[in-house]
């Protein structure tokens, strides 16, 4: 029951470049530039089976190959450090503790896709992390890992930090680009896909922080080494963010496919105050809930999909028996209603209606027939929006009603929670 993390290595002061270098930092970059062509790096990443850690799990190397071969425009790389999916807090720890790992991974990715200007889009609230990254970029430039002719390879790269303005939607890749271009963060219709026409109309690759942090170890140790962790279809390690009613909330980097029971009970210390487990949202607030008896499931893309949920961003939100499910769904619906960019009607109106109905139920003014209305709204949002934010608002509400309908009915009838809410803030 112990696993040596690969990304979240417990190295003190690893945010300082000399410490990072002392532990092998930037040697993968040197190896990449010296021994491999960009195409070979892409092939290694394809062979490793690395899948995006931002939520969708798309194969990273394959995504890179979507840049048109005959492209003559500049290619951009956007690092998605917007981390705003409720329940998710892994990229923040990576950037705080290992900013150079992200910089090194970013340079390797940029080399592979022939990009000379990368942007790190970091959520605006992460001010301390932004300062750390600024410092890391400056240090890396001084050492010749950034700028012109990196390590004598002839490869040039500039990294620019871009701070968001407090909008969840800007984590969605097309909204991220519109935001970077100076507009409000409205998502765009795909196709064209960013790899073909993205930022400033040029081919653009968007990758999550954790995805990129996996590149230095993959280049250093090879694709087979990476595949020795995790499952055949979901290789590597994954950072699981455990929050809510556990004794030891926090980030746990473990091989993909670890069982949820092990994650919650062996690593995260079990349920707080020995309460029983009511429900878990395993992949951030955008994915379906599972009831507490369904935790003998493995934490990888395939297994969670089979179990009726999703790995998503691996934000594991744990709710014990003292949680009011109506309240939980209400809080989540408030978030999507607040964050909908308002561009398309099913999402703008749908999330608002869901929120209003849940607000009524939560405050003792609900009607039983509104439960089916909620489910109906879910069906009418799903699949009908420009970007997946609308889809993301649906699963928690839908599953909360399907799995805990009795609790909703009680709430509506008795105008209060069915459960005794536990004390939390002391």
């Amino acid at each position: 029951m112990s696993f040596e993390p690969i990304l979240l290595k417990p190295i003190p002061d690893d945010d300082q470049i000399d410490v990072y270098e002392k532990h092998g930092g930037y040697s993968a970059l040197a190896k990449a530039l010296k021994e491999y062509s960009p195409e070979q790096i892409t092939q290694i990443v394809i062979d490793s089976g690395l899948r995006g850690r931002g939520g969708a799990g798309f194969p990273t190397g394959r995504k890179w190959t979507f840049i048109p071969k005959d492209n003559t425009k500049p290619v951009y790389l956007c690092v998605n450090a917007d981390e705003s999916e409720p329940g998710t807090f892994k990229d923040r720890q990576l950037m705080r503790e290992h900013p150079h790992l992200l910089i090194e991974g970013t340079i390797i990715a940029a080399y592979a896709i022939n990009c000379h200007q990368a942007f790190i889009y970091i959520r605006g609230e992460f001010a301390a992390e932004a300062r750390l990254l600024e410092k890391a970029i400056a240090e890396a430039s001084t050492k010749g890992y950034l700028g012109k002719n990196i390590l004598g390879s002839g490869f040039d790269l500039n990294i620019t930090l871009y701070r968001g303005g407090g909008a969840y939607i800007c984590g969605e890749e097309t909204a991220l680009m519109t935001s970077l271009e100076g507009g409000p963060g409205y998502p765009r219709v795909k196709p064209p896909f960013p790899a073909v026409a993205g930022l400033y109309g040029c081919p653009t690759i968007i990758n999550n922080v954790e995805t990129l942090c996996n590149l230095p170890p993959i280049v250093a140790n090879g694709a087979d080494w990476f595949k020795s962790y995790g499952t055949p279809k979901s290789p590597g390690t994954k950072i699981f963010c455990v929050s809510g009613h556990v004794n030891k909330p926090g980030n746990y980097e473990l091989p993909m496919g670890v069982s949820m029971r092990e994650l919650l009970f062996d690593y995260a210390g079990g349920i707080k105050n020995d309460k029983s487990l009511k429900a878990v949202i395993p992949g951030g607030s955008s994915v379906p809930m599972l009831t507490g008896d369904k935790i003998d499931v493995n934490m990888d893309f395939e297994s969670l999909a089979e179990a009726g949920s999703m790995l998503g961003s691996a934000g594991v939100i744990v709710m014990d028996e003292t949680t009011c499910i109506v309240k939980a769904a209400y809080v989540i619906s408030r978030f999507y209603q607040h964050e909908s960019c308002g561009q398309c009607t099913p999402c703008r109106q749908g999330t608002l209606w869901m929120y209003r109905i849940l607000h009524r139920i939560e405050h003792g003014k609900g009607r039983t027939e509104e439960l089916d209305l909620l489910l109906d709204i879910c069906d009418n949002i799903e699949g009908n929006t420009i970007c997946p934010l609308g889809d993301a608002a649906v699963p928690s509400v839908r599953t909360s009603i399907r799995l805990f309908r009795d609790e909703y009915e009680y709430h509506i009838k008795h105008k209060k929670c069915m459960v005794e809410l536990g004390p939390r803030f002391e």
Partner: protein
Amino acid sequence: MNKADKSILTKSTIERLEKLLVVFPEKKSIVLPALHLVYEQFGYLNKAAIAEIAARTGVPDIYFEEGANFYTMFPIAPVGKYLIQVCHNISCTLMGADELVRYLKEKLKIEVGETTADGLFTLVTVECLGSCGTAPVMQINDTYYENLTREKVDRILEKLRRQE
């Protein structure tokens, strides 16, 4: 607008603004970074400052206005010296965000959205701050305060009051 003495932007803001202008392939990309600069200098999106930036850079002020309306991180009117932003999203709610808000309201004697009479504290609720493992969480100006308890809140407010 070149006369420095007429500017309401500090020298540092102007310097950073000028640096921004050479970073991006397209000038309009400075909108969000410029809003950050204004927020840092004024603590809210000061209209005159934005107008000055628009004039200095040639980026139409409608773009800044659009940004100011869209991006919720920046107050559009002056707020207290300390902007207390309590996360009320799911993980923080599970760990007592409601009680935390109630406690702050009692202590500061204000409602959510209000500022204390001495102009020191403004209390607002915000969505997930990306720190759910250390819930409940609040951000005051740009600093995070995590794993909050009543005692911690008391100490934090006390310290800020002393610093004034």
